[in-house]
């Protein structure tokens, strides 16, 4: 059904048919994912949904079931470790969520039941319950206000934690209801829950949004209220506005998965090749089962196809190390440990709140280095949400308040003489400030200081006057307080009369006749008051653009200059004008206004026309400048972000004017920026309907910003293209929903894509009047746009939660508006300014570290397993491992894991200071630069090259296995050990070459793991281990070291493997801050393309090196074949293989050059 019926107090209405107690959900909030019972299966299921975990599970099962060359422990143990650690981590996080939910659900509330107040837990509230809420409590569910302790049937509410608007909103009780709630029987019909915060349709009687109190909002300034619950639990607007916390995956993880697939293909093709060749080889007589190597009876009996399959699986297991399970462990560890550097950073420590940064998810560290779009909240994020009256301009003279001077004389003219006339103007201006507003005075005696957001702290200076102000806009309060500082104090509004205490401490009284309310289209408001002397005055304040046409032009020029200067400084400016109304004029206005208010049709238009008529021919008194103080270093931060190539979008629930001035203040919009506005105001058009106008505007803006704009290279922003016109885009919530869900026939996707294209070509975008879900919608739209850019949301309030959750990275500010944003964020910092270091330094470093980590892991496992693959060609495809089981297991766990872990935690390829000073460095890693296919190919080629070197280098050495000076020979385990030694040293030294930042830890770990390898090998080979079935490595390592040839081959292979790398490091075009170092680069024109991670000629070099190597091996073989004729037969076979490989390489080389 489309509506729900609610029986107030569960009492059926007498006149309706039957009381049908409908089923509504209870008031429980559930944000947790697991329960005790479903944790294990659900968590395991989710973990094994990850492609990697599933793969390792399969490998493990194969090892358990099939006779494989390696034991199941080698893959089972790491897998178990990974799964357990992840499960514990996720379990802990869910436990925290359970705890938070419980706190909310068990919160005690008072419910009226049969005339008695009953204390209940919040979760027990049912729809239809009458709930009592006292001051400063948050509403436990969505309520319809029935009764308030205030006489006028109103209550004040702040929705700071919902939409970030910290001002007090007035809500009204349902008119004409029974005063005795016990006797009240009523039904409420309302629509089914929907998430839009600003849209309520309560069709029955006069119920509207002003009667609905939302869960999460806080009662202010009202002792207590009674309300009936209409939406509870997960159906409240707040809960509906929350989105489930989806598991965020970083782009790096996506790259890993892509690489994983490549390696999986390599793995499978390796296994297929080996299996095929095995059966080809076996088909030759005498090869499969020579007399010296008979099969067991079981093997003989088994089915041929089954055997082929198990052979395939065995090869898979043998080569499965190519997909490193340890990489996942290391990545997890790197992320977990690495995130401590964020919490530890003392630059993120804010002495005010005595807290530093907080890391909720360590999964996204590297994503901080990849951000392309920053979505920021305004209130509390860009600004401190703390309005302050800065200066005013009266009749062309500028007045600035000086703190240092005494209260009364504080009002000083900084650029003009003071004379009598001036004095009069001054006072008129201040009276206007005191009268022209809708501010209410908060009664003294109640807890004044509670409301810090409205800036009551300013009043702390005057303890004797504990007076707070309440207004729908903090600007008004700032103005009233500004006037107070200069001697005119607004005392309050009592029965239509406003009282002002003037400089002489006299009380002036004015009769309030009319309030011409503020609205965003008119952008001004006025009051009509009557002085005690009977004069009728109209005071009007508003945006300059709406005031200037309504005053005498000669007055404008004097003030315009000030206003413009103030606006560019980022202050919120308002102009103040007044007009004296003659009795006739007033009478006309009065009747006109009254008529318009009572009009049944087109009331809005009529009122508007009347307002316009009244606010004419005024005279300008002055202008004010109010500062919504920006957060510390907000402008610098925004500039740095833009310099780093990020696009900043401001998403706010606030008014457009306010937001716009903030954007100017933050230098997101600059003086030269042409603003493209798409708001309710610009859509107002007499000729066209709204959607037609929208279409027209979209087309126009698109032409301007996209089509006419010269093609700009990606990543190049303002600083690079100063010649071009900058565009800023402004849109508001209502228009956005028009764009997203256009009415009727309009083409939805077309609007959306037009909008997106315009936005992407603008340097900054401002979206105002956004509901939380709309913020998320925008983030989602950008996130899913072409190229799927990485998005970051930063906000401080509950209204930002949905966008924080939606963006790739969500940052919470530990601001004044509660902790919801922090709780739902991935990272939380105390201040906006910390974002700069978080992204430019930490994010950049994390990205470089983890990208290198991932590439290195794939590389080191490729050159680890490639020799083992090649060995199959020499051992009859029998799945004989080249390395001992201990080496196979320890390689990733002990010998090569610590250096890369240390690297991935400590590396600073560029120092933090330089990263912070040169925001443009951030662009170098944009678009996942280090994990694209290009660098991946480079690492893969390197791995293959080194794997080939290791294997064939030792292979040539072993053409005569008599390697010791006593004529004794080496066997297969010596072969493997030599290869393995070269391997361990090469990959470790390769990392050493890559390390740009050698701390003692790096030294310790790199040299330590090499030493450990040597030590371990001695130790492992030095003892007959009773638990081992075979003593394969007994004294193999020691014997290897006693052979000079082995030493020599190890040295040359390490050197040769690293040679291309050293060459590349030297040849690589110097980047960034080191450019002053003595570098040189090849004269190839291709090298000047420094956008690519590695220039193409590098490939040329690698390929030519491999080519040289193979040519020399070819020559070598000629020599060898001449030396010993008797060995000719197997050697021709190898020669064939080499010529094959050579051909392949040559063709690759040719392809690479093209």
């Amino acid at each position: 059904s489309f509506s729900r019926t609610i029986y107030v107090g569960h009492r059926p209405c007498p006149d309706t048919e039957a009381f049908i107690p409908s089923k509504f959900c209870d008031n429980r909030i559930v944000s947790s994912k697991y329960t005790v019972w479903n944790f294990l299966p659900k968590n395991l299921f989710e973990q094994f949904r990850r492609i990697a975990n599933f793969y390792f599970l399969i490998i493990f099962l194969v090892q358990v079931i099939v006779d494989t060359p390696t034991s199941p422990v080698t893959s089972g143990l790491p897998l178990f470790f990974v799964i357990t650690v992840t499960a514990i981590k996720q379990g802990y996080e869910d436990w925290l969520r359970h705890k938070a939910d419980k706190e909310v659900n068990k919160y005690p509330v008072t419910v009226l039941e049969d005339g008695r107040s009953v204390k209940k837990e919040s979760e027990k509230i049912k729809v239809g319950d009458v709930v009592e809420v006292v001051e400063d409590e948050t509403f436990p569910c969505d309520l319809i206000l029935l009764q308030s302790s205030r006489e006028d049937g109103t209550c004040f509410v702040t929705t700071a934690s919902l939409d970030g608007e910290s001002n007090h909103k007035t809500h009204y009780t349902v008119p004409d209801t029974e005063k005795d709630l016990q006797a009240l029987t009523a039904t409420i019909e309302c629509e089914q829950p929907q998430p839009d915060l600003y849209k309520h349709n309560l069709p029955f009687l006069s119920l509207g949004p002003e009667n609905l109190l939302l869960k999460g909002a806080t009662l202010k300034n009202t002792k207590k209220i009674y309300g009936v619950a209409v939406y509870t639990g997960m159906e409240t607007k707040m809960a509906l506005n929350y989105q489930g916390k989806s598991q965020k995956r970083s782009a790096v993880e996506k790259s890993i998965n892509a690489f994983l697939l490549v390696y999986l293909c390599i793995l499978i093709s390796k296994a297929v090749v080996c299996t095929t060749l095995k059966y080809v080889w076996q088909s030759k007589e005498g090869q499969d089962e020579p007399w010296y190597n008979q099969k067991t009876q079981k093997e003989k009996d088994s089915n041929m196809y089954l055997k082929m399959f198990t052979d395939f699986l065995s090869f898979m297991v043998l080569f499965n190390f190519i997909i490193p399970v340890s990489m996942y462990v290391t990545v997890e560890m790197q992320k977990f440990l690495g995130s401590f550097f964020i919490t530890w950073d003392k630059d993120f420590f804010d002495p005010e709140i005595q807290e530093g940064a907080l890391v909720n998810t360590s999964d996204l560290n590297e994503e901080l280095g990849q951000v392309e779009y920053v979505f920021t909240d305004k209130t509390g994020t860009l600004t401190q949400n703390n309005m302050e009256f800065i200066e005013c301009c009266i009749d062309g003279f500028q007045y600035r308040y000086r703190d240092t001077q005494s209260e009364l004389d504080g009002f000083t003219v900084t650029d003009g003489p003071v004379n009598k006339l001036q004095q009069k103007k001054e006072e008129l201006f201040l009276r206007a400030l005191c009268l022209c507003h809708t501010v209410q005075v908060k009664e003294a005696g109640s807890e004044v200081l509670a409301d810090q957001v409205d800036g009551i702290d300013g009043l702390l200076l005057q303890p004797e006057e504990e007076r707070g102000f309440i207004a729908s806009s903090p600007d008004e309060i700032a103005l009233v307080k500004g006037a107070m500082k200069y001697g005119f104090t607004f005392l309050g509004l009592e029965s239509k009369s406003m009282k002002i205490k003037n400089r002489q401490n006299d009380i002036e009284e004015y009769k309030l006749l009319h309030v011409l309310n503020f609205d965003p289209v008119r952008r001004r408001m006025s009051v009509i008051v009557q002085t005690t002397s009977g004069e009728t005055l109209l005071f009007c304040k508003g945006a300059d653009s709406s005031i200037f046409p309504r005053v005498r032009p000669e007055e404008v020029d004097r003030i315009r200059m000030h206003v413009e200067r103030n606006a560019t400084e980022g202050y919120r400016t308002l102009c103040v004008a007044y007009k004296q109304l003659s009795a006739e004029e007033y009478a006309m206005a009065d009747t006109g206004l009254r008529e318009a208010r009572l009009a049944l049709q087109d009331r809005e238009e009529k009122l508007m026309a009347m307002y316009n008529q009244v606010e004419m021919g005024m005279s300008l008194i002055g202008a004010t400048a109010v500062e919504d103080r920006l957060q510390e270093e907000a402008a610098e931060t925004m500039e740095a972000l833009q310099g780093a190539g990020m696009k900043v979008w401001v998403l706010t629930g606030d008014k457009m004017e306010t937001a716009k001035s903030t954007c100017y203040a933050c230098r997101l919009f600059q003086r030269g920026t042409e603003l493209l506005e798409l708001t309710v105001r610009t859509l107002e058009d007499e000729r066209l309907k709204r959607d037609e106008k929208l279409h027209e505007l979209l087309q126009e803006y698109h032409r301007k910003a996209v089509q006419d704009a010269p093609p700009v290279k990606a990543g190049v922003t303002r600083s690079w293209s100063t010649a071009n016109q900058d565009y800023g885009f402004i849109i508001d919530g209502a228009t956005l929903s028009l764009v997203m869900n256009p009415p009727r026939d309009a083409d939805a996707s077309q609007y959306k894509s037009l909008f997106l294209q315009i936005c992407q070509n603008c340097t900054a975008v401002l979206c105002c009047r956004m509901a939380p879900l709309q913020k998320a919608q925008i983030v989602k739209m950008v996130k899913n746009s072409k190229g799927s850019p990485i998005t970051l949301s930063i906000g401080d309030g509950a209204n930002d939660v949905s966008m924080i959750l939606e963006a790739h990275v969500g940052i919470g500010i530990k601001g004044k508006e509660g902790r919801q944003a922090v709780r739902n964020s991935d990272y939380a910092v105390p201040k906006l300014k910390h974002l700069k270091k978080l992204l430019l330094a930490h994010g950049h470093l994390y990205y470089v570290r983890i990208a290198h980590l991932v590439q290195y892991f794939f590389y080191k496992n490729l050159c680890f397993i490639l020799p083992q693959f090649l060995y199959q060609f020499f051992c009859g495809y029998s799945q004989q491992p080249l390395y001992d089981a201990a080496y196979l297991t320890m390689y990733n766990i002990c010998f090569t894991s610590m250096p890369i872990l240390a690297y991935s935690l400590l590396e600073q390829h560029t120092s933090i200071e330089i990263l912070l000073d040169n925001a443009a460095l951030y662009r170098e890693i944009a678009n996942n630069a280090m994990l694209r296919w290009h660098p991946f190919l480079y690492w893969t080629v390197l791995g293959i090259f080194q794997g080939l070197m290791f294997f064939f280098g030792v292979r040539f050495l072993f053409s005569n296995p008599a390697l010791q000076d006593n004529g004794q020979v080496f066997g297969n385990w010596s072969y493997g050990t030599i290869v393995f030694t070269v391997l361990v040293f090469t990959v470790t030294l390769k990392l050493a070459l890559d390390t740009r930042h050698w701390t003692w830890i790096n030294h310790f770990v790199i040299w330590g793991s090499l030493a450990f390898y040597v030590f371990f090998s001695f130790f492992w080979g030095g003892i007959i281990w009773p638990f081992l079935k075979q003593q394969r490595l007994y004294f193999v390592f020691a014997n290897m070291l006693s052979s000079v040839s082995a030493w020599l081959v190890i040295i040359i292979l390490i050197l040769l493997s690293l040679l291309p790398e050293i060459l590349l490091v030297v040849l690589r075009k110097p980047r960034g801050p080191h450019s002053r170092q003595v570098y040189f680069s090849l004269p190839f024109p291709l090298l000047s393309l420094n956008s690519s991670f590695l220039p193409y000629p590098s490939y040329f070099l690698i390929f030519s090196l491999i080519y040289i190597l193979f040519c020399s091996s070819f020559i070598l073989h000629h020599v060898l074949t001449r030396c010993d004729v008797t060995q000719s037969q197997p050697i021709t076979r190898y020669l064939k293989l080499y010529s094959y490989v050579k051909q392949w390489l040559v063709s690759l080389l040719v392809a690479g050059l093209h």
Partner: protein
Amino acid sequence: MMASSYNAKDEDAVGSGGPGAVKSKKPDNTAFKQQRLPAWQPILTAGTVLPAFFMIGLIFIPIGIGLLVTSNNIKEFEIDYTGVDMFSPCFNCSQNYSWNSTSACTCSVPFTLDQPFESNVFMYYGLSNFYQNHRRYVKSRDDSQLNGDKSSLLNPSKECEPYRTSDKKSIAPCGAIANSLFNDTLELFYIHPNGSRITIHLVKTGIAWWTDKHVKFRNPGGNNNLSIVFQETSKPVNWHKAVYELDPSDPENNGFINEDFIVWMRTAALPTFRKLYRIIQKKKDNMTPTLPPGNYSLEVTYNYPVRSFDGRKRMILSTISWMGGKNPFLGIAYITVGSVCFFLGVVLLIIHHKYGNRNNNADIPN
């Protein structure tokens, strides 16, 4: 090690999180936590790499030449005695092969050494197309049995299948490797120019790794008489004699610690391999070469069949240098790498001089 220190810190943080805690949450200002550890920041530049290239070139080329010369000075003689060819002396033996034949087939292969072999000469047998590195083969052994473990002697590992038991007795030594022990007997005679055959003394010890012979391989203890120790066991099916009869003359070279057996048990890396068979020690007088040039005869007791898998058998005589047997690979590799490095050094130097400065200047304005 690092993880634990992190964890400790974490607990601290949790402890101070309570409302009562006065301790500030301000992060410690330590170099490690602030990522300001003193660090060495090496940058490979032309200035550091160029000398390295020249150094490598200058060091490697002489080493390579030395290695190549050494390798070339090693005398090596190799002869295939498989008997595939109709006219080769062992053709008959290779044809009439059967495991059960009681009478040994012998053949004599004449050969000539053109050059004298000085110092100790090492005699190898070589096999081709013999997959000692096949997985089924490599794992088919029981090292604890070979180490003298009594229980393994009577109950060998399953890995030895199908060479684990015969006639309901456990096989000692079990497994495919032991079963296929190379059992040709090679003897060497020098044909004196006057026609007399002089037996060349072949030493059969010192051919296995010392640690293998003395630690890894042990005869089961309990009795000095090996035939009693092994009486519960059966000989490998392809063997003509039991393990305790491998070298009855020398108790230190009999049973599991027979060096021919140990050498065979070290599985070769590649399907074409050589294994040390005997050592011909240099003459005491040092005046005459160990093997003077001239005619020799290799007497083969042909027991080992290789024709079924298309294998080859060789006898190799070789002298040995400090780097082992003859292998020009290392020398060539060192010379090649040394020259490549030198060449690269020169090229880079030219580039550096030609373009380095210009690029450098161009960078500074940035």
